[in-house]
């Protein structure tokens, strides 16, 4: 990895140069990647390490509601939970961010103002991304104007799969410009990219175009986040920093429901990208039901007993 940063700038000068670069990345062997993720999944995180991991995981949650039925009331309730996840235990850390649709950003921003919880908004015709660049940029600008700290955009998977890498690149760059100060998370929708080689290429493409974070999934497509896909993305951010010096965050989203799952992701981060990424600024978990299991396991560690599900709030 000795090519200078300056040469990376030229990579995006045409579809041909982008293709040459992305297809020149080392391939990913599916069997080997699955096996590595599975072995890391057997790490046994107990006692003090578990307590530390659970608090870290809570602080990394992007608490999410992305339903057609979302209302201001629903968003306010979720924001209250984001700030004080466990009403019975004020020592429980707050989550990293709440994640909503653009039209509810103002509601969320008001609800978490001054708490340190960020407001993330999906944008760019989430979840399919099937609209014009003008609409995507407008969608982004609307969310930012309403107070979003972070924008979760989707890439054009159709363009990616048909090899129009420059189009994907330019869209990400345009949305990045529209996002301004807001952090840009680029959703690859790995469930639709299908191959691990594509996941690696899409990760690099997003990072080259200016992504602050790369994110696995919208949560609307199955499979959503998986350990092997996250492993490949963590390898990509690790290699990208080695090559450019710039650090990019990773966010698996969708399908992460238990504390045990969440801890597996932290182990993956720890042993792949390294401890620099074990920070809410560089690693997030996009989830909704996960938070309650984290809280339940947290309480179990502290008290030795499991409380029933009714002791944790359903917001």
């Amino acid at each position, binding site marked *: *990895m000795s090519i200078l940063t300056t040469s990376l700038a030229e990579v995006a000068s045409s579809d041909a140069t982008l293709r040459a670069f992305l297809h020149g990345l*080392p*391939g*990913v*062997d599916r*069997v*080997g*990647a699955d*096996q*590595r993720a599975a*072995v890391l999944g*057997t*790490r*046994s*995180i*107990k*006692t*003090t*390490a*578990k307590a*530390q*991991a659970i608090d*870290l995981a809570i602080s990394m949650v992007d608490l999410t509601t992305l339903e057609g039925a979302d209302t201001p009331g629903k968003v306010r309730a979720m924001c209250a939970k984001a700030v004080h996840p466990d009403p019975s235990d004020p020592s429980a850390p707050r989550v990293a961010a709440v994640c909503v649709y653009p039209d509810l950003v103002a509601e969320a921003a008001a609800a978490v103002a001054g708490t340190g919880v960020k407001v993330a908004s999906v944008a760019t015709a989430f979840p399919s991304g099937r609209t014009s660049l003008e609409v995507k940029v407008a969608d982004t600008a609307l969310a930012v104007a309403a107070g979003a700290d972070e924008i979760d955009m989707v890439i054009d998977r159709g363009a990616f799969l048909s090899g129009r890498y420059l189009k994907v690149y330019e869209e990400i760059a345009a949305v990045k410009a529209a996002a301004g100060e807001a952090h840009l998370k680029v959703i690859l929708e790995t469930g639709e990219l299908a191959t691990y080689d594509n996941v690696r290429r899409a990760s690099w493409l997003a990072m080259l175009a200016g992504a602050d974070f790369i994110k696995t999934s919208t949560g609307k497509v199955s499979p959503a986040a998986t350990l092997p896909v996250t492993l*490949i993305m963590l*390898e990509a951010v690790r290699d990208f920093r080695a090559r450019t010096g710039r650090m990019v965050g990773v966010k698996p989203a969708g399908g992460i429901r238990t504390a045990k799952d969440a801890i597996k992701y*932290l*182990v993956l981060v*720890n*042993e792949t990208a390294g*401890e620099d990424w*074990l*920070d809410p600024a560089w690693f997030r978990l996009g989830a909704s039901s996960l938070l309650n299991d984290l809280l339940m396991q947290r309480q179990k560690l502290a008290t030795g007993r499991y409380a029933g599900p009714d002791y944790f709030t359903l917001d």
Partner: protein
Amino acid sequence: MRLEYAPAPESRDVVEIKPSYGLFINGEFVEGGGTPFKTVNPADEQALAEVACADEADVDRAVQAARKAFGVWSALPGAERAKYLFRIARIIQERARELAVLETLDNGKPIRESRDVDLPLVAAHFFYYAGWADKLEYAGFGPAPRPLGVAGQVIPWNFPLLMLAWKIAPALACGNTVVLKPAETTPLTALAFADICVQAGLPAGVVNIVTGAGETGAAVVNHADVNKVAFTGSTEVGRLIARSLAGTGKKLTLELGGKAANIVFEDAPLDQAVEGIVNGIFFNQGHVCCAGSRLLVQESIRDELLDALKRRLGTLRLGDPLDKNTDIGAINSAAQLAKIRELADAGEREGAERWSPACAIPERGYWFPPTVFTGVAQSHRIAREEIFGPVLSVLTFRTPAEAVEKANNTPYGLSAGVWTEKGSRILWLADRLRAGVVWANTFNRFDPASPFGGYKESGYGREGGRHGLEAYLDV
């Protein structure tokens, strides 16, 4: 943020180790005529148990018991023998946790490996050969292939229970009876297996386990009434056995040493290649006859690959083998540790550059850090001799032809690995590599259906798969 993994030890209480063990002859545990010896836990040098030592008279009794049982066992319909083997396989699965802990205590290998690799493969071997027991006439060795008789089997300490399974499962499936000698430093799981034979109601004398050192092993292989000898271990001992068996009419299979090349081309899937290199040489502390101990890397990606490899080795966790997060356990014995040190020192003296990640070595027990030698030449001892430890020698090549030439330039020929995204190149190499197993884009993967064995000084005969039946049939 730093995430420190707290200790996560597997419980020792799942296994009850007796203070002393006898020999297993004719379905009973009996005293041995030799001087009993102690088996120690290599991770803390504490004695685990005292084990009987079989002398020639004991071995003779065991062979007689096996001979007597052969009549009954070989006369059973294959489906009946299969029932016993299936039963043994199921009991192994049921007692897997206990056996894994016992293996780790006696051998020093990490519990993650004994639990996730050794034990599942042990059960799989018995299931696999149980399936063959009533189908031997379809195995391609004639319409009614006959067993050989009594098999004398001597196994090593690196995969104690797995090597037992490789030997006993096909022997019994074909209708033979066995006298097996486990390694001196790792007898405990073989003795636990004797208990499983009792539990399974296996007829007395079908399996006999005699413990002891080299002399006991010599008594087993040289016994006049043994029809078949199977040995896994060092090339040196294999040579002795081949010599003493010449002209006796005994059928012999040998699975000996190796110095496998793991060949990484510039178009390899790099991250997986790094995992494959780690798994190739640091799995089981490198105590693997088919270990990828010579890394042949294409010169154009040498630095990139070595950087990635060193970064990865920095995450390996060396320590208590019973801790579920341990990657590198203890070296099996003081003697083996001395041998590894001697060869590693020789590597340094010969001018290769030695590197190990920073890792704390426990005060007690036998330990050796994962070690990489760069700048190794074909003429260095560490590129020629089997080290049987966590020591990797890195060499480079420029062209596929040079890779093949270097890979084959060894007296051994047990295994090889090829890493490239180009399928045609894999096939081209597989045709030219003189090794019994060629792994493509993986390493150290085993399956009972896949034959295993060597070229040249790595031995002869195949174990596993349909081919593995041949060694135990009169063909």
